[in-house]
């Protein structure tokens, strides 16, 4: 494999309601990512974007986002109807050919205009599930119950994940839900979808993220300490929630193994656990011990701009490597509901 590194990045703060349109969130974000990599947009060899028409609010919504990339003169460009982390996957694959050495990737989403519970209910099997209005929070509740019933966790464990996330997010200017809370106080709150309480749920967020990738020596020229992608893989599982074990994430385990994760020490881990029980499932899937440095940014419980959340995890790891604060990290992204599709990216300093 060619050595490809993250050499530029930027993200908007995640907010409950951004007054800017999705493109307006992207334009300065892309500009900042390019500036950090000291690149002009015309030098970019390949561009790939991730977004979701139905989240933005209409067919072909992604077409407007081309304006953020600067599509004049024409550019070599592609788009995935997936989180930006998969857009980065496509760009990373493209860079392996060896004929170009830079790529621009972005992911964006505004959840504020819609009722996410209604939008994502239409993401499920159209014959058996979508007509019932099965919403993501209910599915996460079923998953959480399965975890409790299996004796793998307690509601207190869920709350502890949330408390850590909010605590970590205090130092993250881009996070939305932050502050110190006590586990007991959180557990005194009512259920939203028993056994899940509000703290177990992600916020509804608007936001965007951009990444610049470069290959080999070009990366070294553009960045003092590139965050090298040592491995990148993703795996999808069976869709019907009743046809797989919701308390485990074998696709994460497999993706991590294929991405070269050998169980060795990690300085930083960023997980797209959009519901607190999922952090416990992912920790187990990756074999992380209790002391692992998981989600120093606060993770998806602190900020969840859907379609950007996964790529933000990669940025959070990459920037810690670039700054020298970390040498080796793992970033995880997820797609679909209750951890159906999982991506693992291994990043390292020189």
């Amino acid at each position, binding site marked *: 494999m060619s050595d490809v590194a993250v050499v530029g990045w930027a993200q908007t703060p995640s907010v409950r*309601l951004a*007054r*800017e*349109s999705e*493109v*307006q969130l992207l*334009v*300065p974000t*892309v*500009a900042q990512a390019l500036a950090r990599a000291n690149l002009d*947009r015309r030098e970019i060899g390949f561009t790939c974007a991730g977004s979701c028409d*139905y989240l*933005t*609010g*209409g067919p072909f*919504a992604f077409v*407007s986002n081309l*304006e*953020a990339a*600067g599509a*004049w003169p024409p550019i070599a460009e592609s788009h995935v109807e997936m989180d930006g982390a998969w857009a980065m996957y496509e760009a990373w694959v493209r860079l392996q050919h060896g004929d170009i050495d830079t790529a621009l990737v972005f992911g964006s989403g*505004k959840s*504020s*205009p*819609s*009722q996410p519970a*209604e*939008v994502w209910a*239409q993401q499920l099997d*159209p*014959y058996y599930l*979508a*007509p019932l209005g099965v919403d993501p929070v209910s599915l996460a509740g079923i998953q959480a119950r399965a975890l409790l019933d299996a004796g793998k966790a307690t509601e207190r464990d869920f709350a502890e994940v949330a408390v850590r996330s909010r605590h970590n997010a205090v130092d993250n200017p881009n996070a939305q839900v932050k502050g110190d809370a006590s586990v007991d106080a959180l557990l005194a709150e009512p259920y939203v979808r028993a056994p899940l309480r509000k703290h177990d749920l992600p916020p509804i967020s608007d936001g965007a993220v951009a990444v610049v990738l470069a290959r080999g020596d070009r990366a070294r020229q553009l960045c003092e300490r590139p965050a090298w992608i040592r491995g990148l893989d993703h795996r999808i599982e069976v869709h019907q929630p009743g046809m797989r074990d919701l308390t485990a994430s074998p696709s994460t385990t497999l993706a991590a193994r294929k991405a070269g994760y050998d169980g060795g020490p990690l300085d930083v881990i960023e997980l797209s656990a959009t519901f607190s029980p999922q952090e416990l499932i992912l920790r187990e899937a990756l074999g992380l011990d209790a002391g692992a440095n998981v989600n120093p940014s606060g993770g998806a419980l602190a900020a969840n701009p859907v379609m950007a959340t996964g790529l933000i995890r990669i940025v959070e790891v990459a920037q810690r490597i670039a700054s020298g604060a970390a040498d080796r990290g793992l970033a995880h992204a997820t797609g679909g509901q209750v951890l159906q599709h999982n991506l693992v990216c291994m990043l390292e300093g020189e």
Partner: protein
Amino acid sequence: MSDAKKETLVMEHLVSLRYEEELTPILERYVDALIDGRIVGHKCPQCGRVFVPGKGYCPMCVVETTERDEVEVADTGTVTGFTIITPVAYYGQEETEPFVYASVLLDGADSTLGGQDVVGIPHDQIHSGLRVRAVWRPKEKRSGNAVTNRGWGSVASVIDAFEPTGEPDMDRAKFEEHIF
């Protein structure tokens, strides 16, 4: 029951999703001006092109534009291209008669307003180069409700249509870059 009859049925499924969004601050200023009878856009500080409504950036140069780049354009302009659409019936289609779908380049602007109606002239006399002016709604009936953050209805619910000014046609060379 392996002899189950494998008939294939039709399942109806209504998907109905509602989106509600505050207009961007740029569009809010734009709509306020529109209701006031003025059409404003953003002039790119780099290339000088004027986009109506302003986007907050120049899509060609990809540089940000702000209120400081706001300029007013005229409510007169030129039809640069058009199609007469025979409406196809579909769920939500309200049109039943052939309608005009014209691009209008306002004087002072570099972007065209798409999908405009042209009135006061038979459909078969509409042509590129036709000089037109906005038909404004009475002030009390202007709402800006049809303006969206994703480019639809950029003047609808304030300006219903354009009508011929009676001036001679614009020379094609003057709008060659704005036909589409």
